[in-house]
């Protein structure tokens, strides 16, 4: 009996573990065992019975079409294959680094906050300190926070570098474990869905609320210092919302990458121009933001570039997708 089982195992070796394939294997085994038992009962020797069962089994090629395993049998895929372990490691590493990446972004957004507070307080209290001192202290903190954030990014991006191909190139889940892997990813995604959705709604609420301080303060109080401080409050709300969003969406983001959905779909990935444009676009926006802010010292206004850039980017993406 073991010989029959081994024979069948060998025939099915390397086939995807889809539901259809598993069912087929089970039923074929039952049929073979039935035949074997009856041959034995009719007085055939063990070896003879096994020989007959195996010789009458047929060929898996016959099942290729019904089971959707043509591709596996022909085995001619030259697309990158991602194994179960790789997928699992990717999700794990993404989840591990997410809070740290989120912290880096939080530091980056919060970096001008102290500077703004000091500038605002100076206006309000009219203390007799030199303005330069305020600016120097605020700037020192700003640069320190940016430096910490950047070192964070470098550290974690080098850790996740080995997974870049998942985000950039078209791949397939390894056909041998495709079904199991996809089930695993979808399971994790479903489990996380509630936490992800509530994180998104909380952060979106935060983003909307964040506009209130900058809009309302100048309307209610006509004091320059307060307006500057209100920007600090807005930035803090934006920073916390973003932290929440990045740290809580890691699972969903990783699963989206693995299932090649949304911006990681095969279609988007094939669009190399859009990928390059995206990289260049955000670098240019960052350069403009830093240059403008440092030259004019209009930190109170310059942050507006981020929401505006975000909306423009969405428009660029939509146009690019339609063209391709």
């Amino acid at each position: 009996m073991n010989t029959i089982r081994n024979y069948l195992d060998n025939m099915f070796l390397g086939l995807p573990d889809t539901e259809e394939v598993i069912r087929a294997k089970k039923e074929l085994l039952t049929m073979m065992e039935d035949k074997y038992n009856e041959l034995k009962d009719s007085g055939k020797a063990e070896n003879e019975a096994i020989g007959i069962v195996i010789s009458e089994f047929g060929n898996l090629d016959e099942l290729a079409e019904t089971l959707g395993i043509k591709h596996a049998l022909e085995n001619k895929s030259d697309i990158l294959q991602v194994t179960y372990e790789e997928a699992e490691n990717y999700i794990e590493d993404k989840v591990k680094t997410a809070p740290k990446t989120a912290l880096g972004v939080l530091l980056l957004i919060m970096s001008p906050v102290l500077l703004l507070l000091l500038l605002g307080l100076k206006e309000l209290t009219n203390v007799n300190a030199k303005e330069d001192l305020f600016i120097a202290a605020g700037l020192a903190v700003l640069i320190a926070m940016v430096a910490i954030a950047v070192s964070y990014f470098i550290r974690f991006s080098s850790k996740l570098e080995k997974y870049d191909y998942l985000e950039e190139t078209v791949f397939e889940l390894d056909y041998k474990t495709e079904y199991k892997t996809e089930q695993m990813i979808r399971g994790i995604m479903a489990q996380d869905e509630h936490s992800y959705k509530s994180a998104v709604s909380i952060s979106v609420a935060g983003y909307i609320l964040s506009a209130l301080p900058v809009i309302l303060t100048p309307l209610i109080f006509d004091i320059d210092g307060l307006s500057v401080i209100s920007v600090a409050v807005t930035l803090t709300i934006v920073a916390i919302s973003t932290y929440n969003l990045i740290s809580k969406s890691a699972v969903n983001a990783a699963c989206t990458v693995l299932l090649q959905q949304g911006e990681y779909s095969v279609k988007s990935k094939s669009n190399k121009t859009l990928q390059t444009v995206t990289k260049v676009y955000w670098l240019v926006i960052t350069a403009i933001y830093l240059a403008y802010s440092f030259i004019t010292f209009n930190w109170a206004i310059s942050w507006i570039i981020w929401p505006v850039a975000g909306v423009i980017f969405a428009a660029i993406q939509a146009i690019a997708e339609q063209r391709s």
Partner: protein
Amino acid sequence: MISSDVIRGYIDTMILYLLLNEPSYGYEISKRIRELTDEKYIIKETTLYSAFKRMEINGHIESFSGSETYGKPRTYYKITEAGKMYYKEKCKEWEITKEVIEKFILREWK
């Protein structure tokens, strides 16, 4: 020994015939085919299974699980109304096929 190319078009018909009166399962069907044909045609397991799947998709048979002697749940198949209709059509088709081919068969060599 018959060539499987010839018989392929009528495997569904053979299975449907065996299911006309009562549901059955894989091995029983293959055994009855062997017995009915006096071992002139032995159906391969893969051929039978792919026929089951094809016929299920076409709606000619339905599967359900029942239990059998060894205590293992076994997949049973039963014929549907569409399957019966298809079977009747195939019987008619065979009559014609037989007639046509018959015209080209030489019985006596001169």
